[in-house]
């Protein structure tokens, strides 16, 4: 059934009138191949500390009134599907466990665990038919006041200084942010906004998902931070790029998207 996978993503074959089931943390996905149509059913919870993982298990097609089925017409006898992870469609806001002070000319690396979205591609096509969060994060607002700012997702898990403190989950990716304080004053880091729609996903040979590393240089108070994207994840020798960014970077990206990078914790 499975043609290739180190993790849960990859290509699968579904036989006629067969149902396969995936359990990705809190989300369960059933895909059924019927004559002339695909039936895709998903049921999700919000439990972010759910580590369950089941890959392409033969199952019964789910039934019930509360089950939401997506039917996709497909005349060809093609039986191949592809599951792919992708980063969230809005920037994410992450808090540090405690306020973190970065002295002048000092550098700190924070590790963030980012929840992923699931995409389903059918019949070898490039356009996905499903693009849904595996564990839906809460909405939040990032801005100086309630009139100017940006809608983001709030991360439940905080940014950590040690990668070992982060929960390793199959439906989350690790992102490393290097914060460099080049200003003469101390930089207080309480919340960070990370524009994940502009980042790509990489898979390590152990099946862990990463994004490319990010370097934020704080130059001067009240000035936009300088930001640099590495071309590959930090601390990872062999990695394979498995998903591109949702939004391509424009020329003004660095100054626009990171105009405000550091925020204050709400009181």
């Amino acid at each position, binding site marked *: 059934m499975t043609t290739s996978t180190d993790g849960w993503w990859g290509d699968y074959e579904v036989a006629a009138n067969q149902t396969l089931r995936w359990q990705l943390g809190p989300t369960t996905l059933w895909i059924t191949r019927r004559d002339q149509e695909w039936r895709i059913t998903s049921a999700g919870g919000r439990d972010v500390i759910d580590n369950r993982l089941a890959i392409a298990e033969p199952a019964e097609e789910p039934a019930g009134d509360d089950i939401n089925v997506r039917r996709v017409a497909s005349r060809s006898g093609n039986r191949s599907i592809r599951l792919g992870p992708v980063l969230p469609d809005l920037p994410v806001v992450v808090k540090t466990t405690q306020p973190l002070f970065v002295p002048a000319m000092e550098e700190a690396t924070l590790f963030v665990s980012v929840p992923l979205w699931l995409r389903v591609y059918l019949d070898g096509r490039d356009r996905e038919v499903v693009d849904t969060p595996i564990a839906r994060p809460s909405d*939040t607002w990032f801005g100086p006041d309630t009139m100017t700012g940006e809608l983001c997702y709030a991360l439940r898990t905080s940014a950590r200084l040690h990668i070992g403190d982060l929960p390793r989950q199959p439906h989350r990716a690790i992102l490393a942010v290097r914060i460099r304080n080049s200003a003469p004053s101390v930089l207080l880091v309480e919340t960070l906004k990370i524009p994940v729609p502009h980042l790509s996903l990489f898979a390590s040979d152990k099946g862990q998902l990463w994004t490319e590393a990010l370097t934020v240089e704080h130059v001067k108070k009240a000035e936009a931070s300088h930001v640099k994207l590495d071309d590959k994840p930090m601390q990872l020798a062999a990695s394979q790029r498995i998903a591109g960014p949702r939004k391509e970077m424009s020329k003004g990206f660095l100054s626009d998207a990171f105009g405000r990078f550091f925020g204050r914790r709400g009181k």
Partner: protein
Amino acid sequence: MGEILSNLGLSDFLTSDRVLGLARAVLIFVVGLVLARVVSRAAARGLRRRVSAQEAVLVRRLIFYVLSALVVTSALHQLGFRLGVLLGTAGVITVAVGFAAQTSLSNIISGFFLIAERPFEVGDRLDVNGRVGFVISIDLLSVKLRTFDNLMVRVPNAEMINTTFVNLTRFPIRRIDLQIGVAYKENTERVREILLDVAERNHLCLEEPPPLFIYKGYGDSALELQFSVWAKRDNFLELRNTINQEIKFAFDEHGIEIPFPHRTLYTGSVTEPFPVRVVTGDARSAAQSEQLERHE
């Protein structure tokens, strides 16, 4: 045939200056108006990417009216009207028309102010004196709204300038204020924790700005609380529905009482206690059947 025409003088008539002038005037009028429409639309289309939809409409209308005025004056000129005389009488006419069209002119001028001030745009949701609807167009004389029950409301521009209205979709996030009453016996700190937990579990409820808990006072029958949560503008209604339901479930689960209005009966300064009769199940059904018989 030609003879008949010449006898009737029709051929002279058809080739006379007056008829030719009339034909030219009609031609200028028709072609000119079509051209004015085409030019104004093309200009608006060209501007659409740079300015708002509303400003593009304004530019389109201005170009159309200026070109139409030129077309009409050229057509009149072709008909032999002397424009100098026309302009002379225009002063008198303006005064007369000014009085007659006072309301319309005030609306037109208010319309320009509305477009310049830009307190709302086409597609925004407005609350104008209690009528809530989407702006479908901002016209020369009025603003047109479509209400949620699919009615068209026309508000004159002058009224829009003079009245206070609320733009519900100006900012991307909105606050929902929930008025909650709990029984006097409840621990408000525990109630606060339950409410904050409900807000945290609902993913439509924004984490920042944080939910607000306000102790409003001692009501007649309940401790009055206000719990305010923030939502994305588009999720406002959904959050209002889901969070109210979730608060009810959470209160039921934790045994928090939402009291009904209480009334203490008091019949005077030295009132005797009210007599209370304890009724058992059998006695109650017997009393009910007795009551029914009496009604019959």
